[in-house]
């Protein structure tokens, strides 16, 4: 009988498997979008301006001066779409467990509203931000708790109900008003820079790194995959299924709180109807990132690439004044093709073998 170490032996590196991964396709799409953006608009990343400015330089100094400038502009662009992408990581956890959370948009709204109200009630801004995080976590924790107490209930239905309730509470609290007038430094959370890097991009990278390590390098992460592949088997082999599910939903709530902070900082005020439809955008990004909704598969790197892909697509089309409707269509089709692609080969093989039965 082989010992556990022999079973867990490292898989030999295979070139073919390495290159036939969804993330590479996504990366190509991302690069194609960058190229497209350059062609669509001379204003993209301010290139035309840079070229003019450095026209008299030889190509090498020109290039060395260009690269940091392009990178800085590129980082600027990310501010336009990164706010909602913090939820993508815990959502990836949840989808890897073959579950779903559609209450995150409402959680963002409730956290933002309570943050605004508690600041208005005299709390200091940092404390109000803690309130947002706490409210988000509590919302997520409630989702997780209900789902663990009633395991037979579908996550879709429970989070549908809490989605309506959380938004409802936000509406009761603020009706059709808005809260704002935050201190001046608060908008720097979204618009500010730490050195040359936008704070939000930095926060996003740190979050991605933390969630990536949790998912790919810890027992917790492996157990998330185990639950996604076979919840019953993992329960019987001692995986603390309930605890992990509650943690994942609480993390989704926490990250919704983070999004609430960035979103409010960006807009300067908040209303109960902010972040409507975020849940579907987030799910779309996660699925496009190669996380299988059937559970058990997916990586953080894929979701990161997909966040940037969709973000730059949106930005590029916006520069060219190509309206959001085409973006909706493109994202919708990308989403379906991303999920359909892995199914095509088995479909073709079964169709082929039905047409050409092999002789016995």
């Amino acid at each position: 009988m082989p010992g556990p170490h022999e079973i867990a032996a490292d898989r030999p590196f295979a070139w073919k498997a390495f290159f036939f991964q969804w993330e590479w396709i996504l990366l190509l799409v991302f690069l194609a979008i960058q190229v497209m953006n350059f062609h669509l608009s001379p204003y993209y990343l301010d290139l035309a301006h840079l070229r003019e400015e450095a026209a008299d330089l030889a190509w090498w100094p020109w290039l060395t001066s260009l690269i940091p400038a392009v990178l800085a502009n590129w980082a600027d662009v990310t501010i336009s779409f990164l706010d909602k992408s913090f939820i993508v990581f815990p959502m990836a956890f949840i989808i890897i467990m073959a579950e779903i959370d559609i209450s995150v948009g409402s959680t963002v709204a409730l956290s933002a509203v309570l943050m605004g109200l508690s600041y208005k009630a005299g709390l200091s801004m940092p404390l109000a931000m803690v309130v947002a995080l706490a409210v988000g976590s509590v919302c997520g924790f409630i989702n997780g708790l209900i789902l663990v107490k009633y395991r037979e209930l579908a996550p879709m239905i429970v989070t549908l109900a809490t989605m309506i309730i959380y938004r409802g509470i936000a509406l009761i609290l603020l009706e059709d008003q808005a809260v704002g007038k935050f201190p001046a430094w608060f908008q720097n959370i979204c618009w500010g820079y730490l050195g040359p890097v936008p704070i939000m991009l930095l926060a996003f990278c740190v979050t991605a790194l933390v969630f990536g390590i949790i998912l790919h390098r810890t027992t917790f992460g492996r157990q998330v995959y185990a639950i996604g592949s076979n919840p019953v088997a993992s329960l019987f082999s001692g995986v603390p299924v309930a605890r992990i599910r509650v943690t994942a939903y609480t993390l989704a709530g926490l990250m919704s709180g983070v999004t609430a902070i960035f979103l409010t900082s960006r807009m300067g005020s908040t209303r109960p109807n902010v972040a409507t439809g975020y849940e579907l955008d987030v799910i779309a990004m996660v699925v496009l990132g190669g996380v299988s909704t059937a559970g058990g598969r997916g990586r953080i790197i894929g979701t990161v690439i997909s966040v940037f892909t969709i973000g730059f697509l949106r930005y590029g089309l916006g520069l060219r004044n190509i309206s959001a409707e085409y973006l909706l269509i493109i994202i919708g089709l990308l989403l379906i093709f991303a999920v359909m692609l892995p199914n095509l080969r088995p479909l073709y093989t079964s169709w082929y073998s039905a047409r050409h039965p092999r002789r016995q």
Partner: protein
Amino acid sequence: MPQGTEKNPLDKESSSFLAKVSRFRETGLFLFILVVMLLTHLKNPNFFSLENLDDLLTNTAILSILALGMMLVIITRGIDLSLGSTLALSGMITALTVSSYPTLHPLLAIALGTLIGIVCGSLVGLGVAVFGVLPIIASLGMMYVYRGLTYIVSGRRWVNASQMPESFKAIATTRLFDIRLYIFIAIVFYLAFYYFTNYTRTGRRIYAVGSNPDSAAITGIKTWRFIWLVYAIMGGLSGFCGVLWVSKFASAQGDTASGYEMNVIAACVLGGVNIMGGSGRVGGVLLGAVLLGTLNNALPMVNMSVFWQNAIQGSIILVAILVNAQVKRNVDRGNLLRRHI
């Protein structure tokens, strides 16, 4: 006999109160609706006036028709998030058509809308049934596509009441025997679906596919056909309701019915359609839709601020789900205990 409730003769002597409740889930829902109505009536005696009931049922008609389609989809273990967009697209195209051809017969307009809906639904169904895309993703993707198309065909403009011919707006205002046409349409759909789900072969096979797809396939049912069919039906109903919607509100906008799919799903869940597939009844869905419609109608009547509506609706849905789960647990435990004795 409606599906899923075949009485076990053994149950008779030992059935607990809770078991009875679960068997008569619809009765409970019905009583709850009555209680809500009576409470509202005590606060505001106008509730049981004919005009108000007429209003209530007219406003519930579209939701209840859509819930029928969603019921079929959920029975096959699917979900359709694209219905709001399909509704908007079909409504928008129909509104644009009647505004450029004012002489078009209203029936033709309805047929056009339904046809657009069927095409939209079939595309979702194609993805789900043939290409094996999970329903939530396929319908989410097509939701974006149809919403984008709606904005494109409309050029981001509204079609407003003055652009629509009187004959088209009359769909919503016509009365038969002093009752609005919409109520009749909903009744006809309910009777048809009752017959379809309980007494036709196709209807029964939809349940078979939903309760156990593998067994259904082994017994010779081409499951993909039925899955495709339910999405096409859902799309057709959405398209049909798109025309009703535009005629009723006399305006077609790009963001018509955005998010409406959640209301429809909620009506189904309240009506006892199991999201895991295989069970769900026409009567339950009707009650679920009527409950949501009653709440929408009653809350303003008792001077409840509109801002409370979401929270109250959501709480009722959550409580209904939890109570249902608890009751089912108790019943199952009772059944298990009996088996051991």
